[in-house]
């Protein structure tokens, strides 16, 4: 028995794979006749990464203390009051949308939207390996939504928002008395529409056109393209609606910052978008 002790002995499954790119490399790796033993190869990898993580956590916890401010005081509202950093993307949405949209509808749509991904992405390619060329739309959409929108808005919330939820540069003095003119107006008004009724209709056309009209038109136009035919009406509808809502958030942000637009659609007491 004892003679068999030979740590790190070369066993056939350790031989290196030629470096190729993308799917070819992934396939080449999978095609090798042997699977590898979990012990030691995976367990070793897990052990090393676990040790490194625990070490970082320990050093971090020794050097940086968890925050602890004054005792809770319901009569003293800090300015700004920030949510925990991982929710600042949602708090940032409050700038652009009413609370029930920013705080309830959009988060629910994010969760539901994430859950439906496997059921609406019927592209069989790119299952289990990194590829850009085989699923450009899926990756571009996800990366935009996650890295640009979500992480981007958290960054703005953490580093660029100060008292009154006004924009500050990280090195600026947080002046609680900073005066920011509130000149936001609604889109119909901006375009010269003065009648409330017409404004409402105009708003409905804009929002409806964006969420239903545009996807519908594209559907009519491209109905017979292989992609949309395979996707089918229901899946296409879900993808298109979610996509347009996400894009709509961006459009609304641009309208606000470029033209000080407050709402596009106003139905008093019921719905402001």
């Amino acid at each position: 028995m004892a003679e068999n002790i030979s740590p790190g002995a070369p066993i056939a499954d350790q031989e290196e794979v030629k470096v190729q790119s993308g799917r070819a490399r992934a396939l080449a790796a999978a095609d090798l006749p042997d699977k590898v033993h979990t012990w030691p190869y995976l367990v070793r990898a897990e052990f090393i990464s676990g040790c490194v993580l625990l070490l970082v956590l320990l050093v971090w916890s020794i050097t940086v203390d968890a925050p602890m401010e004054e005792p809770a005081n319901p009569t003293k509202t800090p300015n700004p009051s920030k949510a925990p950093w991982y929710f600042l993307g949602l708090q940032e949405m409050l700038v652009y949308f009413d609370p029930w949209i920013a705080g309830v509808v959009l988060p629910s749509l994010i969760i539901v939207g994430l859950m439906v991904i496997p059921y609406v992405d019927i592209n069989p390619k790119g299952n289990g390996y990194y590829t850009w060329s085989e699923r450009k739309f899926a990756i571009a959409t996800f990366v935009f939504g996650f890295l640009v929108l979500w992480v981007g808005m958290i960054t703005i919330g953490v580093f660029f928002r100060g008292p009154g939820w006004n924009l500050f540069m990280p090195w600026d003095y947080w002046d609680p008395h900073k005066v920011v003119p509130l000149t936001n107006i609604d889109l119909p008004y901006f375009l010269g529409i003065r009648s409330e009724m017409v404004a409402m209709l105009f708003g409905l056309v804009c929002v409806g056109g964006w969420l239903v009209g545009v996807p519908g038109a594209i559907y009519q136009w491209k109905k017979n393209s292989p992609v949309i035919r395979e996707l089918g009406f229901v899946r296409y509808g879900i993808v298109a609606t979610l996509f347009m809502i996400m894009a709509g958030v961006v459009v609304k942000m641009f309208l606000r910052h470029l033209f000080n637009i407050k709402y596009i659609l106003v139905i008093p007491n019921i719905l402001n978008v």
Partner: protein
Amino acid sequence: MPPDTETKKKPGIFDVITENYVWRSIFRHGYADTPRNRVLQVSANVWLHLHPSKMRRHGIRYRHTWCAGGLTFLLYLCTVVTGVVLMFYYRPTGEYAYWDVKYLDFDVPFGMIMRNMHRWAAHGMVIFIWLHMFRVFMTGSYKPPREFNWVVGVNLLTLTLLLSFTGYLLPWDQLAIWAVTVGTNMARATPLLGNEGPFGPQLGMTPRYDARALLTAGTVVGSPTLLRFYVLHCIFIPIIASILMILHFWRIRKDGGISGPL
């Protein structure tokens, strides 16, 4: 395939340590690196048997998984262990909570580091779960047959954020109550169920009786909220999250292990 041990080498440091009377009295024989033993190491070990005993080669690569799922789980375990330590010193009432945390910070031996580790591990968990989701997306690992495990994952993501959010209130300092005030205020605007949401008032929602009041156990973030969040944070959400994690891990095996090209 048995390792090649035919060639006789000079005894190395390893042999000097292990091939002597004392060592052998403790460990009767060494670990023989045979295929059979490699399998047994995994399948006969209570901690490791969740793993398959053999797996496809790419699955062990850092560049495929980033280890992000495993490290999320490790950070979760860290918060559980340190969290239980904190529970020994913490009373979830407006009267005591803040001072109990102060006591932990300044007087309890290793109290500060337990609290720091709990907090930073929780933040780390949020970061790693996002990384994990990102890599699962990038490798297309939510595609058949793993659709449902992705859904389980999204639920875990939601629960992780809720865990962090409920925990944020517990130090009961200014940072805590105002962050939670901002967060729970949104519930006021829930359609139908919030007193300021569309159709809420028409359905009889009032500040005392709506979705937000259910969360905060009252009209403001106060002592009853603290107790409610404490129970959610220490019992309710961890149990559900743990159950879902077990399901998540089991499904990884049932779905054929770590995804790979086929």
